[in-house]
């Protein structure tokens, strides 16, 4: 989540002061991402240092929350480039859930179907919360878009869990340390334990 670019976007509409930036940021992100005022100031200082914003020359210089900023030409260019840049997602993410399942695959005594079900129940529980948010926010476009984004992301987790469970049913696990000369019996993870 890039707060600096979100603040640049707000300033592209016209000069604004610190408190105003925080309020507008929260309103436009459906108040799902609260922002503290210290974060706004430190971000604005970095943007000013980088020449992307400047103090508004039409306003008398004021310290702290009342200081008014405006976007510079370099800031406009930065914002425009950012909007068109794909989010970082090319490298396989270090997915904690995937790592847990890969680890569990080799651990003796782990009930993998039960473990996958626990994650499925938890993920659908989160989906219910975002659906309830969506249900109560019929006219709030930002909130609807946020809820949809989270729901599609969480749905993909559930679909992966379903696919994983189906694969486990069809594959016997690799033995973690096969005893030499001993014939391993194939074992199905899906069987009742």
């Amino acid at each position, binding site marked *: 989540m890039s707060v600096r670019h979100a603040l640049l976007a707000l300033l592209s509409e016209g000069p604004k002061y610190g408190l105003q930036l925080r309020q507008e940021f929260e309103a436009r992100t459906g108040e799902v991402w609260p922002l503290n005022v210290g974060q706004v100031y430190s971000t604005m200082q970095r943007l000013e240092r980088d020449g992307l914003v400047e103090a508004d020359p039409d306003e008398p210089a004021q310290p702290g929350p009342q200081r008014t900023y405006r976007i510079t030409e370099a800031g406009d260019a930065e914002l425009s480039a950012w909007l068109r840049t794909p989010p970082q997602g090319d490298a396989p993410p270090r997915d904690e859930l995937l790592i847990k399942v890969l680890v569990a695959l080799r651990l003796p005594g782990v009930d993998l*179907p039960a473990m996958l079900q626990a994650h499925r129940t938890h993920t*659908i529980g989160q989906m*219910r919360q975002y659906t309830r*948010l969506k249900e109560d926010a019929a006219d709030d476009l930002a909130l609807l878009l946020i809820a949809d984004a989270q729901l599609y992301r969480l749905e993909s987790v559930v679909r992966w869990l379903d696919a994983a469970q189906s694969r486990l049913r069809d594959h016997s696990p690799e033995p973690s340390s096969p005893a030499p000369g001993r014939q391993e019996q194939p074992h199905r993870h899906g069987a009742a334990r």
Partner: protein
Amino acid sequence: MTAPPPLELRGVSRTYGEGAAAVRALVDVDLTVTAGELVAVMGPSGSGKSTLLSIAGSLEEPSTGEVFIEGTALSGLGRNERARLRRRHIGYVFQDFNLLAGLTAVENIAMPLELDGVKSRAARRAAGLALADLGLADRADSFPDELSGGQRQRVALARALVGDRRLLLADEPTGALDSRTGEEVMRLIRAACRSGAAAVLVTHDAQLAAWADRVVFVRDGAIVDTTAPLPGPESLLTPRGTDLDEPEGP
């Protein structure tokens, strides 16, 4: 005295076939759905979720166990009494709408009332009101093939809710619809629950199940897990000043 729940399954099992070839489709299922509650039943194909819905809707009998509709045990009813109870208390919604092509929207909705002995004019009036509730008053005289998928499913929903039916059973009700239209149908089902109906929704779709108050997971014929009650909306909020921005050097 509290009213009995619209639906209760106690120790319900269903086995198809006998001996070595017997297949256990449902194994000792207990499920109670209270008035105003939307319960989703999730599971992969062949998990037993559709059998559960058929038995809950009295379309199929359990091998063992008991089903209660509004406190009435189905096993104690004769064939005709059971059919009457189905018509009066239970509404069904299916993925493919199951509307009769030769009848208009309002006639499709009035039909179950007329079958139950309601006079034609009164049945049509009730059907018209049910249609208006779902925002389709102006399509009362349209035939199913003149309606969009979303409109057809709304007609099917009006037919399921018309009269005083308090139990709605839905099998993949948005399966044939795009996501936005499906969402509209789910909003209507939620609204029906808010006004006191109980609903059971069978689906393999997590987005759909997420509309429910409670999700039960079925696998190999048994309920293996259930979601906890929903926490308040504040649980979605990020604590102030955490994890919002990427770390940046001086």
